[in-house]
């Protein structure tokens, strides 16, 4: 998975957390699968390993990752947790989306039709 960092978009550890959450809810990172070590991930994305460690620690705290002593870090096996996270991310998008279309004065119905059309075209 490609993790792109933008140094002008706030804290790097938050960006890493966000990318990993998406990879997990999308299913690119599978339930129970081992994730890259902090060091390897740091080298892969070109950031300080302590920054990656902070992202992993936060994701553990939120229950998306689980670390097993001496074995490494794994994606949670809790499918319900992942589903909840997916719903949370979807709700965040919906909220942002709702605000944006309100700003340009388009109804949800019109926007939904347009959205369906674009998604179909891109399939």
């Amino acid at each position, binding site marked *: 998975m490609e993790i792109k*960092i933008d*140094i*002008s978009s*706030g*804290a*790097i*550890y*938050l960006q890493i957390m966000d990318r990993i959450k998406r990879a997990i809810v999308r299913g690119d990172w599978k339930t129970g699968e081992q994730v890259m070590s*902090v*060091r390897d991930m*740091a*080298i892969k*994305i*070109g*950031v*300080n*390993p*302590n*920054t990656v460690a*902070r992202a992993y620690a936060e994701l553990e705290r939120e229950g998306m990752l689980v670390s097993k002593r001496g074995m490494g870090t794994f994606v949670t096996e809790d499918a319900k947790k992942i589903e909840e996270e997916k719903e949370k991310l979807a709700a965040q998008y919906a909220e942002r989306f709702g605000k944006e279309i309100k700003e340009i004065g388009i109804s949800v119905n019109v926007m939904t039709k347009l959205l369906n059309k674009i998604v179909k075209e891109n399939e």
Partner: protein
Amino acid sequence: MGLVLDLKNVTKKYPGVDALKDFSLSLDRGKIVGLLGPNGSGKTTLMKLIMGFIKPQKGEITVLDGVPNPMIREKIAYVSELDVLYPWMTVREILDFTSNFYRDWEKGKESELLQLLAIEQDKKIGTFSYGMRTRVRVMLALCRKPELVLLDDPFSGIDLVSRAKVQDALLKTYHYKEQSIVLATHIIDEAEPLFDEIVFIEKGQINLQGKADDLREKYSKNITDIYKEVFK
């Protein structure tokens, strides 16, 4: 984890200039710290004090739990701002020569670093550009396994490719959780994701210090832009 550096109320004066004024700084071990400030802000003086090459008029300096001395210096790799390689030596000769001085030299890292930094070991230093010579000087520090690495402005005046290579080599050879790096620079740009912690210094004093990510969040700006704001 303890502190790698602890300076308390350090003052270093040169005739006519206060290089550091009542300067206090504590840094945790195991971090990569960016020491950022314009030319003449006191970065080089700070590094020389840490190495024990110069003494302060006032204040206390603790490095790796001791007072700067030759024993402690063995645990530090210092890349000074000076371009000090013999032009008639080949890279291979310099590696063999330098390795004799250090107990923490890791022979096995030589080939990895030659490759990471794209240095041809049979070439003579005299044929190299400044950027290439900087790569060689950084390589000599990274072939060791010191507890602390001090890099004095390694990005200054070097080409972009050399810069990217040095940055990549630093990250790839960094001993996570064990090693501390202090990198002084006035050009941050792409090096930004390297740093855990940032210390802004100007006119011998600290202007701002914090975790890089916390600063980015607080100011909603990248470190380069915060730098411009701090030193405007």
